[in-house]
């Protein structure tokens, strides 16, 4: 689904045409992606257009950077304790 959305915002029907799954299955995928913050939707006329929320990857990057900062800070403290033993 994310692959299909790389080209730009699209409605469910267009996404379903490009995938070997039913339209309800696509809708289900989109709900999960939206709940995870990876896609967003905007109304256009009587339908909704879905697009990739690019900030999500930037947020994931930022989360992982802070994850490793926390872990390596613990590592450095332990290393300093070992060196003074």
């Amino acid at each position, binding site marked *: 689904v*994310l692959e299909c959305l790389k080209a730009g915002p699209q409605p469910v029907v267009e996404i379903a045409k490009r995938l070997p799954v039913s339209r309800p299955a696509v809708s289900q995928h989109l709900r*999960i992606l939206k709940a995870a913050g990876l896609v967003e939707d905007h109304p256009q006329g009587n339908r909704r257009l879905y697009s990739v929320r690019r900030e999500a990857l930037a947020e994931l990057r930022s*989360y*992982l950077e802070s994850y490793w900062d926390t872990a390596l800070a613990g*590592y450095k403290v332990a*290393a*300093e304790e*070992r060196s003074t033993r």
Partner: protein
Amino acid sequence: MSTFVDLSPIVRSVQVPLDPEEAFTLFTEALDEWWPKEVHSMGEEKLAELVFETELGGRIFERWHDGSEHDWGRVVEIDRPRSISYDWQPNDLPPRPTFIQVTFTATEDGTEVRLEHSRWEALGDEAEEGRGGYSKGWQFVLGRFVEAAA
């Protein structure tokens, strides 16, 4: 849709006052001594210990108080004490592992430890599998990310 997305590896380095062998041992076999388990583990209060098997194909896993084991990843390359690489796939849940390489380089007053986390963008695809936000393993990484983003 023209926003630039940076998918390059995440790189962190830290200088420690140990020689490379000691730094390597602390990072791996002594993982349990320093890892911030209270914030970065799947088991949290259920966690008994962290085990890092330093051999090719060795596992990195959590052992819980109930005796169960929960994988973080698997060693794919080892060149002690210069480097170790492992696939990182908490609880085998992300369909594709991300990749971590840690190098230990001797410096004048110790060792520079450099960690590179690549293929992490694959985590973004996990949500598509539908197991996404509903599994403990996935929450391990993305749950907090989603919370932070909310």
